[in-house]
């Protein structure tokens, strides 16, 4: 499946079906992120039920601490 993540085309395995599994795939499921799916912001609680399809546009921002 091809996704557009932060503007880049990214090929991900077909086993990735939800936003939760996508975050796990990238190893950022433990980080504090806000995810927008096709220009709609997601509540954290809905990450596991937000399903992904080919060509979905995803924006991920990671709240880092350093400064």
């Amino acid at each position, binding site marked *: 499946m091809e996704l557009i993540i*932060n*503007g*880049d085309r990214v090929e991900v395995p077909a086993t990735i079906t939800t936003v939760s599994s996508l975050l796990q795939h990238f190893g950022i499921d*433990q*980080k*504090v992120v*806000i995810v*927008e799916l096709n220009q709609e*912001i997601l*509540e*954290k609680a809905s990450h596991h039920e937000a399903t992904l399809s080919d060509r979905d546009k995803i*924006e*991920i*921002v*990671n*709240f*880092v*601490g*350093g*400064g």
Partner: protein
Amino acid sequence: MSERYSRQELFTPIGKEGQSNIRQKHVLVIGAGALGTGSAEALVRAGVGKLTIVDRDYVEWSNLQRQQLYTEEDAENRIPKAVAAERRLKTINSDVDINALVLDVSVEEIEQLMDDVDLIMDATDNFDIRMIINDIAHKHRIPWIYGACVGSYGISYTILPGETPCLHCLLETVPIGGLTCDTVGIISPAVQMVVAYQTTEAMKILVEDYEALRKKVVSFDLWKNQHTAIQVDRLKKAGCSTCGEDPSYPFLSYSNQTKTAVLCGRDTVQIRPPEKRERDLEQLAEILAEQGGKVTRNPYLLSFHIGDHRLVLFKDGRVLVHGTNDTAEAKTLYHRYLG
């Protein structure tokens, strides 16, 4: 009247009126590391009326690559960042009322910093303090601008009490220390980019051009050539205990005890005694010298090198234990040498 601000006044959204607005404002910069030195310099050059900068640490060699107000001499002499920043800022613009405080900002200190502050710039390095800033900013209805960076990545968001969602709404929970403790380094353009986002938003607020604010969380990765801005208004929660209808400001309650904090990526633990007390550094220098080890001192702090460890004692009572990330070990050393 000098030509100092002429280029900024020629910029239409600011103009002479905006400039006189900037001149009347007081900005509090919390942290004088990479982001803090960048923001402070930009705002002082821009001619803000008053700038208060607060930091708990001193200048080290590893800071010089990106912390733009400091020199080799500051690192050599372990000058507290707030002191070194103030010196440099005063030479950049003597028109600005610059206040520097060597202080570890936490719940006990933050209330007294809010006096006549118009804007708070976040230049901290952890979420514990950011949640405290978020609470106090809402209590006093002062805008604040989150900024952070790591590696080639950076993020910023402008929080207006009563309007935007707050940091508490966005994060829901406070990220645990370990997860934000980054050891992957940082490049200075990532710092400068966050500083550019933060200080531009700051200027808009100082000239009261609220319409022009970005209203989105912005993030970027300069090495990966990525840029993202997302609208987060929908994440504002009516029941939020910081910005909601019945706020309790949970991060402003505290317990009065010795507090330890691991400083990210520094192999250092900070210990704060339960109550504020001035340390007599001269007397301590004598006592510690008798215990073996090497003591060096400047007017602001005392450094005590013993074995693999170094303890740095500040006048305000805090101690940094270098050479460990283990809070228990740090406390042991603290009590061994300081009672």
